[in-house]
């Protein structure tokens, strides 16, 4: 009871701090870093649904981010001369990203985990190469020069122009995304994901339609990334293929793993660390990826559950144990689960 | 020759063996009876060092086996005919037999050739199919191969995990004849079985394993007469 209250107070304090941050530190640079944290936290939350909740390793996640960005750029810039209002574009982005998720996930999700990782990697690479090369014979993506002079986001006549505006916009969307993620986690589908993550065979034996559940995770994750991409385009006012390199996928993955797969607040913390640290140690930027690589290995060996592991790790477990005692046969002379 | 003393093993959080003790003497055929999940295969694995006992000791010819690698244990003279045969299906019969002699790969070639010859005499079918993939053999032939493979290690103690599994009654008799023949040539045998009638008919002594505990042990003849055995394994009562 008391712990629960403490947790609530903590969350409220966190939210207040986030709201007050630009007022306390009215510095363009600081605010822009904070806005980036929010943006990446959205991405990390989306990937967390795929990797953390459902246990599917997606190494091409940035593709959906890129697709969202380019859709926004197509519909709100001088590139095609289309200037739709932001509120109209967002549903389109979600739709397109979701379709992309179905296209890539539909046929591949029944593959083994490691094959899925490779397919997503290939998909990320294809997306990047298409963005880079679809400027000839017809100019669609603008090629390596990208798309510039993109419209800023507008809402009810208000047009974002300063970093503070973007920060509050991103924070609002982040909170929404967070809410959705938590709701999903605690819903029926969230349980199914965790069951799949723990043991796919057992989940199937319990009657979870694993293919559909995995596809749902994939599509929801994709639409989160799409929205984040649209916001990025509206903020940068330009998009380039190089915004969506594999490196970016790895960054997002590192946020999820570092923070603790499956734990939403941990994932946001991970995003904060990975966005802020290189800003704080600019001279060490060169060593950042080196340290990442090392960190991933060390973390997997000593603390595979991340810095802030999901409190609910036992939830999917219990779910399964119940089923196991209900008589699911253990598959073969298997090693103990976990 | 082999002594297992109060061995306890865990399989995750589950206690698989709860203090199993048994003894195999030089020249014997000892039969370990038990149903599914009674801990028979775990006992085999504990002897071979594939499952580390949580407590208790395994002693072979006066030396403790605990903590030794499987390779070292095989080198000391114990080999296994695994449950369901598990021959290497993508290897030829000859290659399978070579794998059996893996721990002796530095032995003189003539010695290995002699052993191979002995196996082929015991199982002429294997010589005929020497260059065939083991996966293409019949179930009975695979069982011969699995036995031959284990013999290539020149074991003094041969472990057999359910040799009758999945074989026709005629083949089962044949396999047990072979087991007896191998024993007469001087190899001690510990056979794990569900099929109590056949195995007790060739064994000298027997143990009954239930839920990770030895619940009964006696001479084979006495066990064949025992009411408990009749009820549990011979379908009588």
């Amino acid at each position, binding site marked *: 009871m008391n712990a629960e209250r403490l947790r609530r107070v903590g969350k409220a304090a966190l939210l207040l701090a986030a709201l007050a941050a630009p007022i306390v530190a009215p510095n363009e640079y600081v605010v822009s870093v904070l806005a980036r944290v929010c943006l990446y936290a959205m991405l990390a939350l989306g990937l967390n649904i795929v990797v953390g909740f459902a*246990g599917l390793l997606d*190494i091409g996640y940035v593709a959906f981010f890129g697709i969202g960005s380019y859709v926004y750029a197509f519909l709100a810039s001088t590139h095609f001369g289309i200037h739709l209002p932001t509120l109209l574009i967002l549903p389109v982005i979600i739709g397109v990203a979701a379709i992309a998720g179905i296209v890539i996930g539909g*046929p*591949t999700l029944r*593959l*083994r*985990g*490691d*094959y899925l*990782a*490779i*397919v997503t*990697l*290939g*998909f990320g*690479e*294809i997306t990047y*190469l*298409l963005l880079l*090369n679809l400027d000839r014979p017809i100019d669609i993506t603008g090629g390596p020069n990208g798309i510039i002079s993109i419209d800023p986001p507008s809402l009810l006549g208000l047009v974002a122009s300063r970093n503070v505006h973007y920060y509050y916009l991103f924070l609002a969307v982040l909170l929404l995304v967070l809410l959705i993620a938590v709701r999903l986690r605690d819903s029926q589908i969230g349980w199914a994901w965790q069951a799949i993550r723990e043991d796919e065979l057992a989940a199937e034996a319990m009657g979870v339609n694993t293919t559909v559940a995995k596809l749902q995770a994939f599509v929801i994750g994709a639409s989160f990334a799409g929205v984040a991409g649209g916001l990025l385009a509206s903020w940068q006012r330009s998009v380039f293929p190089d915004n969506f390199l*594999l490196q970016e996928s790895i960054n997002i993955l590192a946020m999820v793993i570092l923070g603790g797969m499956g734990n939403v607040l941990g994932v946001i913390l991970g995003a904060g660390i990975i966005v802020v640290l290189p800003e704080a140690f600019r001279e060490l930027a*060169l060593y950042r*990826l*080196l340290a*990442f*690589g*090392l960190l*991933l*290995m060390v*973390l*997997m*060996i000593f603390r*595979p559950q991340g810095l802030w592991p999901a409190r609910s790790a036992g939830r999917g477990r219990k779910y399964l144990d119940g089923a196991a005692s209900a008589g699911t046969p253990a598959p073969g*002379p298997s090693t103990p689960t976990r | 020759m082999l002594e297992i003393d109060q061995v306890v093993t865990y399989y995750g959080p589950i206690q698989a063996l709860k203090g199993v003790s048994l003894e195999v003497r030089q020249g014997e055929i000892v039969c370990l009876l038990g149903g599914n999940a009674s801990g028979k295969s775990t006992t085999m694995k504990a002897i*071979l060092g*594939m499952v580390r006992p949580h407590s208790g000791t395994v002693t072979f010819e006066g030396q403790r086996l605990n903590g030794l690698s*499987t*390779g070292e244990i*095989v080198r000391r003279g114990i*080999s*296994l005919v*695994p449950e*369901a045969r*598990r*021959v*290497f*299906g*993508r*290897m030829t019969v000859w*290659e399978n037999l*070579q*794998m059996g002699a*893996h*721990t002796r*790969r530095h032995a003189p070639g003539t010695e290995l050739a002699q052993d191979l010859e002995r196996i082929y005499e015991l199982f002429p079918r294997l010589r005929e199919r020497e260059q065939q993939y083991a*996966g293409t053999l019949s*179930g009975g032939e*695979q069982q011969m191969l699995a036995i031959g*493979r284990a013999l290539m*290690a020149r074991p003094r103690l041969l472990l057999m995990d359910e040799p009758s599994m999945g074989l026709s009654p005629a083949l089962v008799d044949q396999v047990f004849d072979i087991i007896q023949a191998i024993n007469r040539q001087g190899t001690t045998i510990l056979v794990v079985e569900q099929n109590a009638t056949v195995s007790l008919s060739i064994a000298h002594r027997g143990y009954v394993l239930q839920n990770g505990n030895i619940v009964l042990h006696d001479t084979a003849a006495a066990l064949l007469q025992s009411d408990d055995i009749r009820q549990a394994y011979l379908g009588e009562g």
Partner: protein
Amino acid sequence: MDLLAMLPQQLLFGIALGTVYGLVALGYSMVYGVLMMINFAHGEVFMIGAYIGWGVLALLQNAHVGGLNPVWVLPLLLLPAMLLCGGLGMFLERVAYRPLYRRGATRLAPLISAVGASIFLQNAVMLTQGARMKVYMTHLLFPADWRFELLGVSVSYLIVVMIAVASAMMWGLHLLVQHTSLGRCIRAVAEDREIAQVMGVNVGLVVGMTFFLGSALAGAAGVLVGLYYTQIDFLMGYSAGLKAFTAAVLGGIGNIRGAMLGGLLLGLIESLSVTFINPAFKDVIAFLVLIGMLVFRPEGLLGERLADWRKV
């Protein structure tokens, strides 16, 4: 432009490229065979092989060794690359993968650890060797005019040597796997790890040797690619690795002959798409082949030989 006239030349390029892909693919296949795991860092081992070859060649050149003759220089490039890369592969297995299998971590853990190893190696090379590309002094070994005419196609000796070396290594590996004790053990571990252990096989050692062999071949492939394309950089392992993996899947992962076939096919597909479609899309096509293959025939053209054998 006469595309058909270019065809024989392109086919030759495709075969050369394909043998190299095959060489790298073997590493993926063998490791997958024994561990059922994709060694994501394998492409980086290939890249490091290219750097080692480059380093040795630069040393020889600085030492003013007159008359660099490929007959003795080539082994001098290949051997250190193979040994060091082989060692690196074993080391990776020890520090990055084995602890995870021991501890029985989640099934994602080895994959993530491999991704980590891959990033680490890339950046270690970038930091020590610089981000700019290195240039192989190939012309010192194989002057540009060392070529001959065959059926109207101008063939450089370099390409012949490359195909010959790669083919010889694949053949060597094939012999090793089929006809030696180590090869038997590798196949035994791939087919039934537990029973291999019962036979007294030191499974850890065999897995280590598998990494050594696969990585050594990748190192050799790195040198060959360096010599052929003359430009290398620290990112080259990424797309090459992805494509070699595609080749392995194409032929049937775990299957050694499949890796060679897959490599050749992919090399040909790539060179043909350069000729007939658009050079910018050659990688797109390669990855589409990968995805298509995984979706429609995940067992590959020749099937998964080493692994996935169902017990009778």
